[in-house]
């Protein structure tokens, strides 16, 4: 493979502190290198060069996404792309087909993406879909907040056994991180119930959400996993839920991270920052949440921004999806998964005329603008919950232009004016901050910053080149141009190969699949295997031998080795 030189672009590389300097980026054998002799030169003058985008939370693949597809054939009759010589037939708007998911991310300049919620028993399905998503390196956040083994170990105070179980589970299902969704609520939903506060006991398990969260934080740091725990807090989408969120952020207080990162990622914080006590006085509490994030070293958020339009909501938060579908009366899918979790799916329309949608839209932007340090904010829409991921360029434009926000505010229900602080904020993001919240911050949070999210020597050669001249374009004024240019790269380079040129796919590639291979102490492992064996024989509907996902399901399987033998 001959090399590439990206010549003379304006480089934004926050992990290396590079703020729009004119530089050349050299690529050889899929890596960023100091210099390269035999290389094709790409003229990037007048263009923005950033590391390839990193998606940290998107419902890309798996049972729940496919239930969304089956639930909504109407979603696949729009956004249709016929087969070409290079690309497969592709379709879907809020639940794009696997192929389309890969193509669309690549066109946005994204080169890595993590799927937000892998239910262990259904892991093989998630990996089958990931297998069929081209263009991206991939990984899966693994659902554990309602897992029977974990709840039982933590209740007994057996944090070490819980850690050994987590290590086993991640390896068995080829997962990457600990995802916690409505801790305790998923199990309660097995009886049609929910938990509504951090101290509500989980039926029959006699453990509280607070204990589950603090226990899993401990486990995560004991194993020193690359990512922190990734928490979808209790009471998602409920009026007045900000109080629960504030309390949740305190739970890991005093915990020291085992790596250079947060100990808690509060995911899609937008859905957790609501005030008021009824839908009538529904209001933003984004400022309180932002304040708490500003003063808390342990916590970062991803936004979960809402963009107006039709979408499909899907989470492992079964009771929430039921609640939402009973508000809208729209069709509803649910799937309780034995011993593990309980996802649900229902369509939703964020309407500009709805006061609630208008406030939700403002809340996400307020969070991003009130949190001072861009490293504590990650851009997500919780695809497809707030909006499909390909709306990112619109959100980027809103963040870069207060004028654009004002313009939009005029079109939406006045609740966005009255019940939020958005109209009072002048702050505008610059390109460096945009690069931080779309790639560098994600890579750091995921613990993959050695090879991803930057353009220093030794990084994977994943690069996005945008046709934006930062010396000529004023994002504050030219926001429409920003929106347009971030939607299709001039070049996307994946592993040193040009995969997108001028917004079109020019090469289809298969990425890597990252998973955690953590080794724990042998006697601890033996002990946990005895429990696993006992539970599988009695309570699972599949045999233990048929549970682990074989490596054949993964494209370019890439285990991340962790030595956790000191846990005992």
């Amino acid at each position, binding site marked *: 493979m001959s090399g590439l030189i990206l010549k003379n672009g304006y480089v934004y590389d926050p992990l290396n502190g590079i703020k729009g300097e004119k530089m050349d980026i050299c690529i050889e054998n899929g890596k960023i290198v100091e210099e390269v002799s035999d290389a094709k030169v790409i003229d990037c003058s007048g263009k923005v060069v950033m590391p390839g985008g990193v998606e940290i939370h998107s419902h890309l693949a798996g049972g729940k996404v496919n239930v969304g*597809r089956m639930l909504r054939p109407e979603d696949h009759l729009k956004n249709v792309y016929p087969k070409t010589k290079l690309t497969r037939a592709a379709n879907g708007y809020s639940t794009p087909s696997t192929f389309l998911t890969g193509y669309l991310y690549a066109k946005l300049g994204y080169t890595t993406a993590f799927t937000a919620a892998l239910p262990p028993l*259904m892991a093989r399905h998630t990996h089958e879909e990931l297998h069929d998503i081209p263009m991206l390196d991939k990984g899966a956040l693994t659902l554990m907040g309602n897992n029977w083994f974990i709840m039982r170990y933590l209740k007994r105070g057996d944090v070490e056994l819980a850690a050994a179980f987590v290590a086993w589970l991640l390896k068995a299902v080829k997962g990457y991180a600990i995802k916690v969704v409505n801790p305790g609520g998923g199990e309660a939903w097995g009886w049609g119930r929910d938990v509504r506060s951090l101290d509500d006991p989980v039926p029959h398990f006699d453990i509280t959400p607070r204990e589950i969260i603090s226990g899993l934080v401990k486990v995560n740091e004991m194993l020193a996993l690359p990512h922190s725990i990734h928490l979808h807090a209790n009471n998602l989408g409920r009026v007045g839920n900000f109080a629960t969120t504030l309390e949740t952020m305190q739970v890991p207080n005093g915990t020291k991270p085992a790596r250079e990162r947060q100990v808690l990622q509060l995911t899609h914080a937008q859905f957790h920052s609501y005030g008021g006590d009824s839908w009538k006085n529904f209001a933003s509490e984004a400022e309180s949440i932002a304040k708490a994030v500003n003063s808390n070293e342990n916590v970062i958020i991803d936004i979960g921004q809402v963009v107006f339009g039709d979408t499909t909501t899907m989470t492992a938060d079964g009771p929430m999806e039921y609640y939402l579908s009973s508000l809208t009366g729209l069709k509803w899918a649910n799937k*309780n998964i*034995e011993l593990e979790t309980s996802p649900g799916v229902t369509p939703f329309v964020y309407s500009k005329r709805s006061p609630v949608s208008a406030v939700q839209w403002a809340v996400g932007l307020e969070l991003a603008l009130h949190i001072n340090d861009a490293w504590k904010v990650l851009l997500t829409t919780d695809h497809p919950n707030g909006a499909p991921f390909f709306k990112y360029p619109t959100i980027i434009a809103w963040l870069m232009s207060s004028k654009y926000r004002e313009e939009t505010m005029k079109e939406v229900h006045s609740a966005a004016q009255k019940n939020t602080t958005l109209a009072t904020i002048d702050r505008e993001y610059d390109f460096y901050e945009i690069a931080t919240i779309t790639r560098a911050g994600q890579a750091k949070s995921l613990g993959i910053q050695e090879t991803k999210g930057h353009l220093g020597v030794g990084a994977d050669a994943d690069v996005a080149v945008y046709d934006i001249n930062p010396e000529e374009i004023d994002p504050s004024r030219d926001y429409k141009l920003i929106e347009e240019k971030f939607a299709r790269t001039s070049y996307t380079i994946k592993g040193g190969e040009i995969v997108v040129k001028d917004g079109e796919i020019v090469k289809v590639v298969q990425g890597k699949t990252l998973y955690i291979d953590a080794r724990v102490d042998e006697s601890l492992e033996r002990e946990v295997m005895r429990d696993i064996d006992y539970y599988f024989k009695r*309570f699972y*509907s599949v045999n233990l031998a048929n549970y682990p996902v074989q490596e054949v399901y993964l494209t370019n399987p890439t285990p991340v080795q962790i030595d956790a033998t000191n846990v005992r």
Partner: protein
Amino acid sequence: MQRYTDVICSFCGTLCDDIEVVVEDNKIVDVKHACRIGTAKFLASNDYEHRLLKPMVRKNGKLVEVSLDEAIEEAARILKDATKPLLYGWSSTSCEAHSVGVELAEELGGVIDNTTTVCHGPSVLAIHDAGYISCTLGEVKNRADLIIYWGANPMHGHPRHLSRYSIFPRGYFRERGQQDRELIVIDVRKTDTAKIANKFIKVNYGEDYELISALRKVVNGGELREESVAGVPREEIIALAEKMKNAQFGVLFFGMGLTQSYGRHRNIDNAINLVRDLNAHTKFVIMAMRGHYNVTGFNEVLSWQAGFPYAVDFGRGYAWYNPGETTANDVLQRGECDAALIIASDPVSHFPRKSIEHLARIPFIAIDIHPTPTTQLADVVIPSAIAGIEVEGTAYRMDAVPLRLRKVKEPPEGVLSDVEILRRILARVRGEEALTAKAEVAK
């Protein structure tokens, strides 16, 4: 002698994964834990007399043995020459085969459909309208105290469903197994499953919809004025509705008695909404009793690759879905397809006469394990290995839990997997070099 444990039975949608198989000299000599029909499938793999072993092509009206390369070449020619080929079957093979099938259909601009079209197609349509409130089978085992089979007779169709997942097993919250649960069967006749039920409710033929509506009325607090509905007395309906509301965890399994009787997808739509109504009072779920072991897997693969669960027409270059238009029988009966590829299915035995008449008129390829009326009528016949016995692969249980099928013995000499056969056809359709035997199955 080789003993295999944790083998998956690739026969019905119960997809039992606890089978033990003993193999000697590439023959299965013992099968443990499987039911009668599952055991029969395993043992039948020994019987080469009733297997398809040699590829055949019809010449001068007669099927004659040919080399595999010639059969592949002829299959590719037939498909390439067609304007709109139909690719049908799929429910008894692996997801890896489905995946190549979708790519082939896309390449050809053809129609791809599976047996959903003749079994749970109405359930899929109902899901589009109403949703699907379900769970995995282990949830039923651990929690369910009320189990209802409606228009389904698992004693015959899914023999181990009752013992593995629903009424008999002990579960975490149902320590005493059967004693902690109640079984109700609703059907038009007293089936063998009904005979072991705590209660059998006989519904008039074709009046399931009315009975579901009556139950919904009572569940939602309405007053039932009729003396009886669908042949069921008022008191019984009220008692059943109350029982459903008061269950801690109830499950409604439904079969083709509900999908293929008068009302079809409207029955299922109504049943899903009954379960939704019940969720205002307690925990209740619903599940389709899928028949073929991997009918579910096909719906999954096609959904993630093409956006729709069955009946997809790639004629426009992208996926078009319109059941009633793009479904196999409709395509055949309108005489719209001018060639076909039938895989792991025997439509000649099961499709309506009008469909078969058209199939007989057009050139078509059959890929299967055994000779069937369909392979007898085909123009190209390609024998294949048995997924789950002779080759690995993936299958989805009726509750969409995916399992890895195991290989316990070698296929007959020269016989390839469905995946490999389809890959070779696809390569030839694209005009690529013929693949060699070395091009192994990637996953």
